[in-house]
């Protein structure tokens, strides 16, 4: 019960996303993400509806994600975190926000990118959280606990896609 992704939406970007290739390499060189074993950087910019630039880590991947043309910094958790959904989501949010802060304070890109306060929560486990009403209910409940003051809604998604929750 840990395979969730959280995406922090990007309001505007004024640089080629390839500038995140050296930035992510730098995170590896300087061990910038705590508790993460960082492995490599992958460039998928050539895929229109894809993961963009990715930092691969054992615990979870970070990517400048392009799904549905909706750019954001996505953190996709791969290994267990916490004992329940709320704890997991809360930890994932902390990790993602930490990465966002790193970008906001990076002198090479900080002035060229603006993050919004919108998040998108993505369930990445079709066994535990298949895209159905019951899973949606559980996820909404958990998200409203973690993002207590937020407006939470369920976006329209493509048939068969992973369950998603918008958080504003």
């Amino acid at each position, binding site marked *: 019960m840990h*395979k969730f992704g959280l995406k922090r939406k990007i309001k505007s970007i004024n640089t080629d996303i*390839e500038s995140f*290739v*050296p930035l992510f*390499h730098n995170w*590896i*060189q300087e061990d910038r993400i705590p508790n993460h*074993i960082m*492995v*490599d950087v*992958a*460039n*998928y910019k*050539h*895929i*229109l*509806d*894809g*993961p963009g630039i*990715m930092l*691969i880590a*054992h615990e979870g*991947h970070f*990517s400048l994600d392009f*799904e*549905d043309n909706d750019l954001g910094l996505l953190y996709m958790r*791969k290994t267990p975190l916490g004992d329940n959904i709320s704890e997991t989501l809360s930890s994932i949010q902390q990790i993602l926000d930490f990465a966002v802060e790193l970008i906001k304070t990076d002198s090479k890109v900080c002035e060229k990118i603006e993050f919004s306060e919108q998040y998108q929560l993505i369930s*990445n*486990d*079709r*066994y535990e959280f298949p895209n159905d009403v019951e899973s949606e209910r559980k996820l909404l409940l958990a998200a409203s606990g973690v993002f207590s003051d937020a407006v939470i809604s369920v976006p329209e998604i*493509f*048939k*068969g*896609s*992973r369950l998603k929750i918008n958080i504003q």
Partner: protein
Amino acid sequence: MDQWKVKLAGILPESLEEEISEFESQMEMMRRGEIDPRIFAETRLRRGIYGQRYDNGQRDDGNRIREIVFPSGELMKGPDTVWDAPGMLRIKNPFGAVTVDQMVVMSDLAEEYADGVLHVTTRQDIQYHYVHIEDMPPVMRRLGAVGITTKEACGNVVRNVTACPLAGVCNDEAFDVTPYSAALTNFLLGHPDCQDFGRKFKIAFSGCYDHACGLVNMHDLGALAITKVINGKVKRGFKLFVGGGLGAVPHPAKIFDEFVPEEELLPLSQAMGRVFARLGEKKNRAKARVKFLIAKLGIDEFKRLVLEEREILPHDDRWTSYLEHGPVYGEKALKSPSDIKTSSDEPNFDHWLSTNIYSQRQKGYSVVSIALPLGDLSSHQGRKLAYIADKYVGDAIRLTVEQNIVLRWVSNEDLPELYKELNAIGLATPDAGTIVDVTSCPGTDTCKLGIASSRGLAGELRLQLAQKSLELDKAIKGLRIKVSGCFNSCGQHHIADIGFYGNSRNIKGLKVPHFQVVLGGEWKNNGGSYGMAIGAVPSKKIPKSVTLITESFIKERLSFDESFQGYVRRVGKKYMRSIIEPLMVVPSHEEDSSYYTDWGDPREFSLGDMGVGECAGEIVTREEFELQTAEREVFDAQLALEENNFIDANSKSYQAMLKAARALIRIENYDVEDSPEIIVQEFKTRFFDNKRFFDRYAKGKFGRYLLQRFDEDEAEVIEDVSRRYVEESQLFIEAAHSCYARISRGEV
């Protein structure tokens, strides 16, 4: 326990579930240190699980070589391969065929377990990267539930059987090779005669000779469809090619037979497998492909041995059963045929129509090529593409060796709408099969053997060429560019008009990424001839070299009819080299440091990340493999015992002994029947009565366990008896290992 195992029970074929469970047992044995890492490596390779760059736990981060300390610590999944390091999974798609359901599931898995990308390879496979080994069983189960296997996708076995993606709809083919490639795939998958190769064995089918089709000239076994009139009747058959291959030293295939009747295709392939297993090189993996065996024996002797083997093969109904109702493949058009519509409001429709459409033999239908940059497709695109395919063509989807996807049986009037829908998901890029459509192996992105960034270069070339696509001279538009990250030719650079393979040069103590330029290879005629290397150019100057080479061709060709191959042959290697020579100069680091990094990678270039490749698999003999299978069986018996499942413990421990005994017997009697009576009798005659199995101290004690067990009536289902059986089985297998070692040393 894998939750998907329960969920998919009854859906997944029983035999596949058994194999995946076996693999889970082997994983557990590896975790407990009860299996040789070498054997586990070959076992996982044969399940399609491949190593990936940095899986030795080291990475050059641009400043220094760093250790990547994974939580699994000392636990390995093969020699020098860390358990927790992300790896690759190769999915076999025989002849590139993919159904709608399969595309959906492959997309789901890419995002749940990999990096969200499906990568189409140059052999019609799909690869996932960055997958954890613990996730492999659920992935394999979910793939299995939609009819996909990863079995024998890697390792020293028969790899994915490829075929022309136009098979069945092509205007020039002799006949549809699809049913034959399907039959041969099923027949050879896991076939006992194909488990003891020194290297991999690749098979391809083509429907015609003139086009690239299945590239039969560069395969270990290539089958080219032809027909012959015999006694007034048209007979189907194949011209068989053997011993072709690229790699560091490319070998053009030799003709095995001008016409092999269709009913002989499977038995001859089986016989070939036997000869390769028996006589192929096992120790020196660089010389272990069948092309080297053929070079050593000569084609005539190889053929004689194969035909001799064919004569003594025990009959197998499967050789011809698929021919009984006519060799057909069940792909049908979803929609009625219609006339082509060339009008659309979409701005790039005409360009796309001119490069990405092939008119099928069946009037009113087209094949649509989806050009994938670098062979990549995101999970979201894959899911949406499945939806589009379902709407327009159903399951008529195939992957191509040019790392693209084709949709077959598109009714012509649907082309404008289809374009619109593909364009909306970024899959209507024009220029499929042109110079813009550059193919590339994974190179330094994920491959342990990669020297230079083939994907980085291919991406850059694609970008630059696409920008001037509409202005490109017709003479060069149809050329092919192919890039490999090293000399091993996974990017098939030898058969490209313009090919590149990665290497490195030292400049004043610093390394500079280079690519060797290979010109004049022939993509047509099934990869008809190989190109020639003319010199290494710094990676950053390769795009310029493409410009110079193509401009020279346009200016200097004798006529519109002179091909690029003809031009290169005519002007010669020395002249072609002179064109690129000015680009070979490398400025000092101080003058221009960009030369000292590779495409798409800001790190200073080095070779520090290279590892030991797994393309060759581990050299594990058939006997070692079978003894390991016996060990796995006795391990399962132990697990059953722990769960107080004495019936299973009894049966598995007995089966384990039989398997170990059979492994020994097969050294001398390859075709021994798989029945307990025969195995025990053979074991007694060949190994027990003559004391070859005897231990120095225990003498015949361990061998007797099998003989006694065979003679015993129904085993008692109580714990004490089961425990004894399991222990005896374990000891018997240990003794079998010792006996095998003595045989290998020539002592008994």
